[in-house]
Every structure is written in C-alpha cells, then in structure tokens.
C-alpha cells in the first residue's frame, strides 16, 4: 500500500451506499507510477464527489483525486477555447473566465464539478437542446491510460478512446487535461423569461414551442400536485444578457462575478431528514406562487440562474443520514404519453421532493455511453429511506425502457445491470474499446461492479 493513501469511507452526493477505499491526492505526473502499483481492486479518479451514486467510489481499491492548478488555465481568444487541467472545477474556471468575457460551454445545476468529471459524465445543462452536452465542445484531451502512457486524443486522433472517455464514467483512463470551446459573453448577467403553467399539458405545450430559439431552457414541475393542478410547473428560458440589457448602474461593471455561499447545512439533520411530503408540498406551493404568471426580460446573475442550490453548502444533508436518490431518465420525443404516465406514478407515490427538473434534450453525440438523446429528461430527488422507493423506481425503469429511454449513470444508484444494458445499446461497443485500452482492468468503480459495466 502506498503510504500517501489513507483509508476513507466514501459516498456519492446522495450519501447512499458507503464503501471504503484507499484515497490519495496526486499530480498528473505521478499517475503512471500509481498505475504500476498492484491494487487488486483497481483504481478510479474522483473529482468533487458530485455524482449522486457510486461512480467515484472503488470499494477496497484506490481512489485518486488529481490536483490541477488554476494557474495553468490557458485561454485562446482567437479560437474561443480554453485548455485546463482536469482537476480544475467549473467554479474555479468561471471565476477566471467570466470577468474576461467567456463562459463555459455547458454547466450543470452545480458549478462544483471538475472538468474531468464533466467529461466522464458527459454532463448537460440548460442549453442541451441547442448546444449539446459537454463532450460536443471538447476539442482534444490527454488521457493517462492503464499502461501509464499519456495519450493524446480528439475526434481525429485516437477517436475510439476520445469518445469512450466522454461519458465513460472514468473507466477508460485518467483525463489530465482538456481543451474545449467557450461561449463569448458581454455581461455576467442573464435575461430570463418566466412562464407559470397550470398543468402538465400546458407545461409540455409551452416547452414544445419556441425552445429552439432560446439558448437556455428548463422547467420545474410540482410532483406533489394532484387533480386539476397535476403537472403544474414553471418554465424559465434565458440567455446571456447583452450590454444593452443592463441598466446604467450595472453596465458600469458588466462582467462582475461574485458567487457566494449563503448558508451551510450541518451534517446533523435527523435520520429521516427534513424533506417529507408535507414540507415539500408547502414548499412547492410557495415556490410556484413566487413566480409571475408570465414575465419577460428579468435580469439575473449567473449563480441565481444556473446554480441556485450552490448558495447552500451541503444541501444534500437536508435528507438526513439516510441520504437520497436522484432519479433521472430520458424518453424520446413522441413518448409524451409514457412521460405523462411516469409522472402520474411519481405523483401517486408522494415520494418526490421539491427538487424536480424537466428539460428537452437536443441531438445526441457520438459517445457510446453519452446519456442525452433527443427527448424529454426528468430529474427527481427522493429520500432513499422512503418506503416503496425501490418498487417505484423499478416500475419507472420498465416504463422508461419501454418508451425507448434510458438512465443517467452519473445519477444512478438504483437501476440494475439489465436496465442499463437495454438502455445503452452501444454498451458492448464501449466495452470492447475499453478492453483494448485497459485489458487488465486496472480501472474499476463501485458503479462498474454494480452495473457490470466492465
């Protein structure tokens, strides 16, 4: 055992399925050496631990955090790209990029993810329907593969490794550096249009028209409302504000960017947490009522529009020690009836917390394990200790597959190997590529074991 490692119990952001691993912090130059050490149970990289399930855990094996310095961030204004170490977080990156008039090509609901994690999960954001997932914007990356070699890959060079690494859940190698495209911005604000929808049909209708004309679009659904109010929600659409959108005071410092953490949830929330059907119902009512029926052009900051939950540190502790599961799936366009019946099931179960996201995805990319496909994606958080959770998600799993959909591996903590095999028809192809680059199966994770990915 390497003396720099220490045994630590890890979980994902959902706080479920703890397992112990030897955890170490390394710089990219040490990776080749670390891969030579016998580990018995493999090795996997862990960024900021934001995947909800067991993707960045490796029970009995080695888990490495790869340190990257923000001083090595290189912006190329001519090509509109940035080159950055994989351990740098989007938070760190945005603090550098935004004041210079650039924005990351894709951001998820939290900025506390690393670039390596963004690639491994092929993350998506509110702009997926027009600009695709993170992988689409990656021009090249360097990966330390199982034999210790630093391999350069891009859509033209070693394309098999490139695409298998995007969405590959860290099982093809260590991403150490990546170059990806940026979005030029005039200001650090966003202009947001809001539409409050009375029920599911109205929400689906609103989302189905006009999404293609806006860069960012996402909706919240009240998954506890029943009867006439079934499927009510709020749709937010926006884009980066132009200089002309700001008032005189703000226009003086258009690229000011100061994200803040407001409160922290201590890890002492009682066993079953504070998120129950009644508290959630009250929250949902207030959350909906604070939104106008219809409003255009309100100006918001980047954190309040993209990362509202990031202002609350450790919000995952709200669910108590038992943790929670974030269930996310996609069903293709045309399967709206299936989506509706899935939503009905969730509503009937009364297990949904207020954290719900509905979004339309655009085109998929070439990565065999990339999650997004053209269609509807729904994300819902549910307490892991709730009675009937497994029965519910199992029924949902079947409906999702039947509708031609699949589940997001970065969130998964509950589906089974068979469901993933059926949802990802290119899994076999990915496994063959992986096997070529890592024949001795040096890379492994709890997720890989549980879902028989390798």
């Amino acid at each position: 055992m390497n003396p720099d490692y220490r045994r630590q119990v890890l979980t994902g952001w959902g706080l479920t399925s703890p397992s112990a691993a030897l955890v170490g912090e390394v710089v990219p130059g040490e990776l080749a050496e670390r891969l030579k050490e016998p580990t018995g149970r493999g090795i996997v990289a862990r960024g900021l631990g934001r995947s909800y399930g067991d993707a960045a855990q490796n029970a009995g094996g080695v888990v490495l955090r790869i340190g990257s310095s923000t001083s090595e961030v290189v912006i190329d204004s001519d090509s509109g790209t940035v080159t950055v170490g994989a351990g740098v977080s989007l938070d760190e990156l945005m603090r550098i990029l935004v004041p210079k008039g650039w924005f990351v090509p894709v951001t998820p609901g939290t900025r506390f993810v690393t670039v390596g994690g963004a690639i491994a999960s092929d993350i998506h954001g509110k702009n997926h329907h027009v600009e695709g997932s993170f992988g689409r914007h990656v021009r090249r990356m360097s990966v330390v593969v199982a034999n210790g070699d630093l391999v350069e890959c891009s859509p033209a060079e070693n394309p098999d490794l490139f695409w298998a690494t995007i969405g590959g859940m860290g099982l093809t190698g260590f991403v150490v550096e990546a170059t990806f495209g940026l979005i030029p911005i005039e200001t650090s604000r966003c202009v947001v249009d809001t539409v409050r929808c009375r029920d599911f049909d109205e929400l689906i209708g609103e989302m189905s028209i006009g999404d293609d004309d806006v860069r960012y679009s996402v909706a919240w659904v009240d998954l506890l409302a029943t009867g006439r109010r079934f499927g009510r929600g709020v749709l937010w659409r926006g884009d980066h504000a132009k200089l002309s959108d700001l008032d005189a005071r703000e226009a003086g410092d258009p690229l000011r960017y100061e994200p803040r953490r407001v409160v922290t949830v201590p890890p002492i929330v009682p066993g079953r947490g504070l998120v129950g059907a009644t508290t959630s119902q009250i929250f949902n009512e207030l959350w909906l009522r604070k939104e106008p029926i219809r409003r255009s052009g309100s100006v918001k900051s980047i954190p309040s529009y993209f990362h509202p939950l990031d202002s609350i540190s450790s919000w995952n502790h709200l669910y108590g020690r038992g943790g929670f599961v974030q269930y996310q799936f996609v069903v293709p366009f045309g399967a709206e009836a299936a989506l509706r019946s899935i939503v009905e099931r969730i509503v009937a179960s009364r297990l949904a917390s207020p954290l719900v996201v509905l979004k339309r995805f655009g085109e998929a990319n070439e990565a065999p394990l990339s999650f997004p496909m053209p269609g509807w994606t729904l994300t819902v958080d549910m307490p892991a200790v709730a009675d009937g959770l497994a029965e519910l998600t199992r029924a949902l799993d079947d409906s999702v597959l039947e509708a031609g959909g699949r589940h997001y591996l970065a969130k998964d903590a509950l589906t089974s190997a068979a469901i993933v095999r059926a949802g990802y028809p290119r899994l076999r192809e990915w496994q063959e590529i992986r096997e070529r680059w890592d024949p001795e199966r040096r890379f492994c994770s709890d997720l890989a074991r549980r879902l028989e990915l390798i």
Partner: protein
Amino acid sequence: MENAVHEPQQILVLGGRSDIGVAIARRLMSPNTRYVGLACRRPEDATTAVESLARPDVIVEALEFDATRVDEHRGFLDRVVSEHGDLDLVVLAFGQLGDQERFDEDPRSAATVVDVNYTSAVAVGLEVARRFRVQGHGTLVVLSSVAGERVRASNFVYGSSKAALDAFAQGLGDSLEGTGSRVLVVRPGFVHSSMTAGLKPAPFATTPDVVAEAVVTGLRNGRRIVWAPGILRWIFTVLRHVPHPIWRRLPLG
C-alpha cells in the same frame, strides 16, 4: 455491490437450512441480485429452499459448509468470492436450539451446541469481517435471539450461547467502523420455524417473514440492532428489570 436501498448482488446464508436465513435472502432478492448461496452441512437438505428462491438470471445453489470445521472457513469463503464475486450480504443463521433436559443429562451435548452457536460463529464471523475489510464493503446479519437478552432456566444453555454471540456481533460491528462494512444484530422472539416445530409458542411468537421484514427496515435505517417483532424491544426493557423471584415464575415458555 449493494445499491442505494441495500439490495445486494451476492447473498450468502451460512446456515442455509434456517427458515429465517432463507426468508431474509428471499426478501432481499431484487433485480440487482446475481447470486444466492445457501451453506449448510448437508446441501441435499436445502433443495426445497433452493427451489423456493429460484429466479431467472440468478444463480441459487446449496453449498456444503460445516460451521464447526473452522479450518475450512477461509477456503470456503475464498471459493465463493472467486466464483461469484464480493460478499455483499452474509447472513449468519446457523444455530441449534437443543433440549435443556438432555443437556442436564449429557453436558457434552451442551458443549456441542455452544460450539456451533458461539465458537463456530465467532470464527466464521471474523473470517467474513476479514473479507469485508479487503473488499471495502459488506453487510453481516447475525441472528441472535431474545433468549440471550435475559436467560431463562428452561433454555439457558441456548440462551447463554446467543448472549455471547450477541455481544460478539456488536463488538464486531464496532470494530468494522470505517471499513465501509457493518453488522446488523437481529433479536427475534419465538419464531414459528422448523427449529421450533413441536414447541409451545412463547408470547409474541412471530414468523420468518416478519423477521426478514425487520432486517430490511433495519438495514435501510442504518440500525445496529433490530428486534422482531419490534415490540419485544420494549417488553425486554421491562423484563430486564423484573426481580428474580418473579422472573423465574413468569410463563415465558
């Protein structure tokens, strides 16, 4: 690996003929489950149990395992692991009730029961824990008994062996802190099963399925000890303090 609701991929029941052990395995089987091993002295006796657990895509088998042959424990576990993967969930379910009157006549038979219920359980429990440390996760469910909570004259050899096992299992659980694995101690009351067939049921008698349900709830809520039925916890809180002259005369079977 267990998933977020503690459904195991691999299940091993030590004492594969135990009705409670099999009921726990059945209750924890899910689409996540790949393997169930029922380990007992005579595998042919577990045929019915194996058939009752059969599912498509799941390997269910009876394995030859003699708890008292402590030298063979490591080899046995290694074989299961190399063929079927990590031990996600192990149920330590073997045990003998014995007959107090016979123990009084033949103290050597009492030693045999204690050897099975305690000594062998300690050896295999430690062996399982060793495996858990290597694999970085795992759940051990140990079947204790309320008979060990306060022993009675009518079955004090059995009761004392379970009291010892209970204490051992709690200590083992504490020793596994920080290893990603854990121990759940289960204290059932009188359970209608093949072990108790023909005996007069004690008050609050229950069934293997109720015990299995208590295990599932206990695992989900991160408990270290569960009682089955749950009310026994409160009853024994009182019984523990009942003065001796009264305790001896209580009609508890």
